[in-house]
């Protein structure tokens, strides 16, 4: 008899407990109660970074572009990046549109680091225009310097085989899968070997800036190709 009472009592208790838990869960679901302290989801909107470039005269002085050319460049730049700066993702997006068949994101990453000279994570118009000035209107020395800077991923003054391999892989990635002849796994590596054989004079496994510049200046092909894009703007 007692057990019978306990049974019903027990069932009722269980029922009441279940009911209470369910209602608490329901209220939590409806957002009326909060359990944790930091449940407040502050929607911190990153205030839009707005950047205004230096005046036209200053840029004219610092770069080798004329006023008109700077105007054209800025209009294109601002059209694509209304906030005035390019962050890495946008940069990758833009660059990837030129190479639809492959994956340009790695190379774009390296390019971004090369353009972002002050390493603040974003490329402003000044950085952009300075980079272009060197690439299009600079001396061969400056261009080679820039290229060395691009290959030197950790900016320590030496290009190691690993860094070069990364760059090479990034370049080959841009080709995509459908190439002729078919891209093999060791193609980038072979290419790096060739490069190092050419550039590394003292065979110490790294390429310094002087070795690089010397070697490039002695190579006719490279010299010729440096003047290829002078009339781009």
């Amino acid at each position, binding site marked *: 008899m007692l057990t*019978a009472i306990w049974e019903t009592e027990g*069932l009722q208790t269980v029922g*009441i407990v279940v*009911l209470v838990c369910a209602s608490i869960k329901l209220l939590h679901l409806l957002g009326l109660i909060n359990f944790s302290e930091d449940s407040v989801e502050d929607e911190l909107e990153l205030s839009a970074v707005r950047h205004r470039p230096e005046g036209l005269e200053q840029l004219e002085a610092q770069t080798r572009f004329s006023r008109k050319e700077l105007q*054209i460049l800025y209009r294109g730049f601002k059209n694509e990046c209304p906030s005035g700066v390019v962050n890495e993702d946008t940069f990758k997006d833009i660059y990837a549109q030129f190479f639809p068949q492959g994956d340009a994101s790695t190379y774009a990453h390296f*390019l971004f680091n090369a353009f972002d000279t002050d390493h603040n994570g974003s490329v402003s118009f000044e950085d952009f225009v300075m980079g272009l000035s060197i690439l299009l209107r600079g001396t061969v020395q400056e261009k*080679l310097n*820039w290229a060395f800077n691009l290959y030197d991923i950790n900016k320590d003054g030496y290009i190691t085989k690993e860094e070069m391999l990364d760059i090479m892989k990034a370049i080959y990635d841009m080709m995509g899968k459908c190439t002729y002849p078919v891209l093999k796994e060791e193609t980038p590596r072979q290419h790096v070997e060739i490069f190092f054989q050419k550039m590394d004079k003292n065979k110490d496994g790294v390429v310094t800036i002087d070795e690089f510049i010397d070697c490039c200046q002695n190579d006719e092909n490279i010299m010729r190709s440096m003047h290829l894009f002078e009339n781009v703007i």
Partner: protein
Amino acid sequence: MAAGVAAWLPFARAAAIGWMPVASAPMPVPPKDKRRAKDGLIVLNVSGTKFQTWRNTLERYPDTLLGSTERDFFYHEESNEYFFDRDPDIFRHILNFYRTGKLHYPRHECISAYDEELAFFGIIPEIIGDCCYEEYKDRRRENQERIQDDEEIDQSNDMVQQDMTFRESMWRAFENPHTSTMALVFYYVTGFFIAVSVLANVVETVPCGTAPNRVKEVSCGERYALAFFCLDTACVMIFTVEYLLRLLAAPSRYKFVKSVMSIIDVVAIMPYYIGLVMTDNEDVSGAFVTLRVFRVFRIFKFSRHSAGLRILGYTLKSCASELGFLLFSLTMAIIIFATVMFYAEKGSSGSKFTSIPAAFWYTIVTMTTLGYGDMVPKTIIGKIFGSICSLSGVLVIALPVPVIVSNFSRIYHQSQRAEKRRAQKKTRLARIRAVKSGGANAYLQYKRNGLLIDASKEAGQALVCKTNPTFDIQHHHLLHCLEKTTNHEFVDEKTYEESCMEVSMVKQTSRSSSISSSPHGLTCCSRRKRKSFNVPNSNMSVGLQGSVQELSTIQIRERPISNSRSSLNAKFEETVPLNCDQPYITAAVISMPTPPVTTPEGDESASSTDYSQANIVRVSAL
């Protein structure tokens, strides 16, 4: 490639210097960069609204009108700008496309106007941005459906009876009962028999009083078994004949057999035949009785007669997923609550909740808020859960219902719109005909004026001639050339019909030049395609004056016309038979004003207002 990105091409090319030192082969020669003209502003004048943009902006898309040399065709030297005679509001979006690389579709614009502008400027609509693409596609589909619908209805209405085979005409009669009286009769007869059959099924089961040697009441079906059997037989005969006829007439028999309506038909008449076959076997008579239930499906045959039923059917079909969800969630809830109630009420004595399935009944009754009261919980915990059950039942049922309702409303409105379009079609066509006849009236008026320019010296007429704009003059000259070319003349519909009638009469009876004003004679020509040459026949002009007035209101007073016409009469009468049999279809506007009335009615003002009406009307027609 997006336009903005095109502006970064110089950057991408410059960055290619990074590949040079590692290149394994010499670089190709760069393309000859023809020295572009200095980037200047271009002024685009679109119907007075001036837009200005850089030349380079436009040249981002060289395969469009504005980006290529095609725009030179629109160059206006005097004002040194490019002039386009198009809609400036829509042009705004097109220019924005050049600027931002994204084409947007403004929701308030008409889809066909927008499409035309895009086609004019050479922009393919597939590049509409994602934000607007769905809307664009939806509107476009809707528009095409609408046009297609109208065309289909047009075609189906214009199809002449004798073009179709007997089978096709029968099928058409079945599908659309308004096409002929025979079809209508058939439609009503079948409807009547469906109703009779359903009623008989219902009345069969009503208790009809006691038989003399029985204690309990018998149903009417048992009492008047023979009568009901005869009625049933008659109905089933009709249904069978109808089904067979439909099967015969169907253009695709396989498709017809698979359709829902045919299945309903078969299910409705099967029980009778099965009953005929099986009456002697006692074992299956139980099953036979069950089969009689299917006779109630005859009521679904009404859906051919009622559009509302069809709409309901479509709605349920289109909401199948929502209904499925409703069912599924209800089942889940029923099982949960039934289990809970069973275990809650297990303890109480004499409880009706003997098993979980038994509790299903309680849960369903409670969730749908029926509450019969045959099973009630007695324990406190049972009552608590019972109340939760009824509350949640309300919610679960109320959720999918708005979806079903909105679906129904959408389908219903679509069918309403189709009906409205069909109704408006008639007035629309009448309006178009009026406009066209106005245009032709002007030509005839001009002709008569031209012919009369020597004869009549009425001041009003001369004035009217002088104020003819050059466009009209040239157009009239063109129509005149056409007349000369084909050696036929333009006349009005009435005279053509009259001549048609005469020809038919001539063929059957002796030649007579009198008119029979019986209206049914006109039907021989009224069925022809609307655009057809009409041949004048002045003999007919007297008499049928007032009749064909709904199309045009212009009365022409000149009497002497009949002279000119009669002179041409002889020539025409040879050609009349030709015309009547093969109606010519031309692009010229042809349906005609009323023939000259013999008695001059109306005043100067009437004719001049009519003429000015024709003027106004004409511009819109042409």
